[in-house]
Structures are given as structure tokens and as C-alpha cells.
């Protein structure tokens, strides 16, 4: 394995001072790093808190482009090896802040990116939110969510079951990262996805050297029929 530590980015839409969402993602991140370390793979994690970016995110939704701070955050996310995405549940759904952030991402930013989906809520009634709302969202982004999602209520912090779910999800993420399958999918199948020239994705085409000139449309651009 490479000696550069794997880079995990935690996207957290928790906003309160003692955010239980952040508490949950800290646990998941630590467990994932532990699982990787046990396998001899160094990893680091950093947190992308959406709260401080809330105004930038709202502006980007309206203007159609991210400001400098938000753009830096998006670039950081696009460069991550693995992602832990977590949102509080508000009014029976994911937080609007989280969804708005997802709305301003390039469609190809997270292609084949291994992701743990997590949410926190006030009661067990909303336990399906990660699977019913986050999973379709990340499917649209062509990301690769691990099989186990994590949902936590206040009561769960007294339950060993939460620790087991965290461990399971972390193990799944660690195995996906160790296999390198996400990176390999993105490397080999990249041309098959829809892209935006000069977008934010790590592999985005940025110059003539990156562009495929053999497509039907490129041939048409160079005067030829299809």
C-alpha cells in the first residue's frame, strides 16, 4: 500500500454546539482509522462542518457558483479517499443544509467514492432516514455507500448496539478503501460518466490534453458528420 495516509473527510451538517451528529462522526472516523491501522494502512480524518459554510451554500444555490471558501471545501471533499456523511434529522428528513450542500456539488464529484451514511435524530422513529433519503442521494452522485448505515438517537449512546453498528460500517469502509476498488472504478470507467469541463472533480478535464476528441460530438465539431 501507499505510504501516503488515506484521507477521510467527514461531512457534518450538525450545527449545535454539542452536536450529536459530530459526536457520531467522530466515533465512526476513529473506528475506521483504527480498522485501517490494524491492517497496516495509515489514515487521517478531517471534518468539513457545513454550519460555518451555511451562508456560502445558500448563496451558491442562488448564484449557481460557489464562493472561495465553499470551493475549497468542495475540492477537499472531491480529493478524499473516503467520506463519512452525516446529517441531523429535522422534520422527518435530512437537514436542508446538507441537501443544499449536495445540490451545489458537481454530479461527478463523488463518482465511486466509498461513503458511510449516518444520521442522528430525536427518536428511533426516523431510523430509515439514512437509507431512504441519503442512500438515493448518493446513488444519484454515483458514490459507493457501504452496506451499513448508522442512525443514532440519544438513547443509543447508552447502548452497545450503536458501537457494533459503528464498528460494522467502519469495517466495511476500511475494506472498501483497502481494496482500492472505488479509485479503480473511477480511474477505468471515468469516461462513461457525464462530466463537466473544468469542473471540481479531481479527474475533471481541464485542458486539451484531457479531452477525448474521438467522440461523435467532437467529430461533428471538427466539421465531420457522425
Amino acid at each position, binding site marked *: 500500500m501507499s505510504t501516503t495516509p488515506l484521507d477521510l473527510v467527514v461531512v457534518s451538517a450538525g450545527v449545535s454546539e454539542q452536536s450529536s451528529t459530530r459526536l457520531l462522526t467522530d466515533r465512526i472516523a476513529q473506528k475506521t482509522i483504527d480498522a485501517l491501522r490494524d491492517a497496516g494502512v495509515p489514515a487521517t480524518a478531517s471534518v468539513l462542518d457545513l454550519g460555518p459554510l451555511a451562508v456560502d451554500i*445558500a448563496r451558491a444555490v*442562488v*448564484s449557481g*457558483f460557489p*464562493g472561495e471558501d465553499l470551493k475549497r471545501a468542495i475540492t477537499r471533499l472531491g480529493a478524499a479517499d473516503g467520506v463519512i456523511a452525516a446529517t441531523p434529522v429535522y422534520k422527518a428528513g435530512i437537514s436542508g443544509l446538507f441537501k443544499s450542500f449536495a445540490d451545489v456539488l458537481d454530479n461527478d464529484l463523488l463518482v465511486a467514492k466509498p461513503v458511510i451514511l449516518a444520521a442522528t435524530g430525536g427518536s428511533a422513529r426516523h431510523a430509515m432516514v439514512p437509507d431512504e433519503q441519503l442512500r438515493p442521494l448518493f446513488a444519484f452522485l454515483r458514490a459507493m455507500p457501504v452496506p451499513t448505515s448508522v442512525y443514532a438517537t440519544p438513547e443509543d449512546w447508552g447502548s452497545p448496539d450503536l458501537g457494533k453498528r459503528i464498528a460494522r460500517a467502519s469495517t466495511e469502509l476500511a475494506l472498501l478503501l483497502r481494496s482500492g476498488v472505488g479509485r479503480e472504478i473511477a480511474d477505468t470507467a471515468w469516461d462513461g460518466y457525464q462530466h463537466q*469541463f473544468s469542473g471540481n472533480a479531481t479527474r475533471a478535464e481541464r*485542458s486539451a490534453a484531457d479531452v477525448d476528441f474521438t467522440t461523435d460530438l467532437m467529430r461533428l465539431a471538427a*466539421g465531420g458528420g457522425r
Partner: protein
Amino acid sequence: MQFGIFSVGDVAPDPVTGRTQSEAERISNLVRIAQRADEVGLDVFAIGEHHNPPFIPSSPPTLLGHIAALTKNIVLSTSVTLMTTNDPVKIAEDYAMLQHLAKGRLDLMVGRGNTAPVYPWFGKKIRDGVGLALENYNLLHQLWRNDVVDWEGQYRTPLQGFTATPRPLDDVPPFVWHGSIRTPEIAEQAAYYGNGYFANNVLAPNFHFKPLVDFYRQRFEHYGHGRADQAIVGLGGQAFIAKRSQDAVSTFRPYFENYALFRGMKLEDYMRDTPLSVGSPQEIIDKTLTFQEGFGDYQRQLFAMDGLGLPVEVALEQVELLGTEVVPVLRKELASRRAPGVPDAPTHASLVTAKYGDAEPRQPRPNPNRGDNLSGASPYQDTDADVQAHFPAVV
């Protein structure tokens, strides 16, 4: 270097007075704005085709034909002509006619536009947008260069033995710019033909369009039209000018903050993060010079300055300030910065010289009506006899 203004002919309530111009007022005001641009020595007036309220330019050739009759020197252009939903044959005819009436003071910017329902309104599919733009331009290019065209494509009914009339003025087609903000295929087409490439340079971060401009430059060189730094690049921009900086900001603020596209934005942030220039003539000059620093030497700079519900008196004053206080300084400064060998944007005169040198330009004279309202396979008296066209049988 050419300087001018481009407009989408939007109608918006004036947030200061609450008044909305009627379509009749906006149309005649746009004509006044174009006339003023001509009077103050600007080089280009361009109008962007739209097909729905609150925009008035559904028929740019009609509007520009009228303006051509009222102006002396200014080059008329479009920003953009929809290359997707218009029939390229009609574009060839309309703009060749306009080119004659404007005595060559015409070029054309083609593109895809930004209004999704226009596609279904004109019976097209938005998913075909890029293909339509590319294929239709390929046909337009032939129609303006070959007296007789046989053609078959994916989107339009085939043509056999078709002649687009009138032939372009002096048999020299209007220069074409391709406008695009995200599509490398469009930049590739501009490069392939050696045409101009225009990035609107509005509603996006500073230098957001640099990768596409650089792509076009590289491909222009690749196709052998010249060095990358000789490629024909145009940029847009948005400006509001007042003698004193603080007056510019305070006058412009209500128009900016109440316009749908900018709601929720802070004017100062937008001025910092995007190409929008609001301030004294010197501030507009300084910011525009950064475009040259970022994008390299370029050939055409157009500003949007008549929209957002500005009263016509203010828009006219803007055009005047641009023409008298800003552009003369920019002309001098940009000329002094320009690398050797970087060309100006082509004009009708320069294209005629390039094609004919000192010789007389071709003036096509049609052959007579055969009796079936056609003039035969060689439509012009001087048509190359080797050009053979296949006519379908006339039933």
C-alpha cells in the same frame, strides 16, 4: 481591439420608481442605446435572441436591420443567435441580407442560449442541444461559402442543389464567433474553423472561463490558424460607471439587489468575486485590464450595461461614459501591452482584403429564371462550371 455593448433586451421593473417599460418603449430605447453607442465611438452593438417575456429580442435581424440604417460605423452583432432552434438555412438568408443592408457592418455570435423551453417551442429536444449547434453551424458554414450545397445531417431535412440567397456581401461571409461557457465541443468547432470564441464572462467567478478560452487557443493553433495567442477571443463583462466610485455603488445597488438573478447576493461580494465592475471610470479600467492579464491579449470586449430595469436615460449615460471615459484609455493601454503578431478581430473590410487583395470582390449575378422559378444547377453567371448539383425532379 474592439469595445462595445451587448444586451439581452430584458425588461424589468425599475426598483427605484416601480415602473416597468412597455415592450414598445424597450424596443425603441434599445435602438437609442445602439445609436448612442455608435455616436460615442464604440465598435460593437450585440443583441441576444430570446423568445419569451420579459425579453424583447425575438427577431434580431429585424432590429439590427433598423439600427443599421440609423448608425454609421458600429458593427452589429448578436449575443447570441440560437444555433440550435433556428433553421440554419434561415440564419444564412437573414444574416446575409442584413450584412448587405448594413454594408458589411455585421458579424454573428452563435450559441445555444440558456432558456430550456425554447427547444420544445421550436420542436427540438434539449438533449440534442450540442449536436444541433454543431451540425447546424457546419451547414451554415457551407451555405455561406458554396453557391450550391448538397447536404444531409441528422437533424434537418436534406438539401439537394440548394443556394442560400443573397450570397454574402462581396462573397465574404460575416465573421462568426461561437459563444459558450461550458462546452468544449463548441470551443473546438470555433477553433476548427478559425472562427472567434466568446465567453460571456458574467454570472460566474473571476477567470472561471479561462480553461475553455485556453482550450480554444490550443486547438486554434492545433488546426494551423496561427499561434495560440493569435486566436480570436472575445469576452463579456458587466459594468456600472459613475464619475465618483461611491455614486456608482449607491446608484447601482437597488438595481442589482432587486434583480432576480442576484437576489441574496451582496453587491460588494459580487464585485469582488466576479467580473462585475461598479465604480469610477478608473476602477472599470483597472478591472478590465485584469481580464487581459488573466486571459491574454484578446480582440473584443463587450459590456452588459442596459438591463436590470435601468431607466433609458441612465443606460444612455452608461454607454456615453463607457465610450468617452473608459474605452479611450483601455484602447491605448491594451494596445501598448499587446504582443507582436496578435491580430485584431476580423471585419468585413479586413476579410475582403484577405480574400481579394487589391482585386475587385466577386459580385454574383444570377442566371435567368428557366421558367420553373429556378435558375438551374449553376445559379450564377460566374459559377464554376465544374460545380454539379443534383436537382430533384420538379413534379
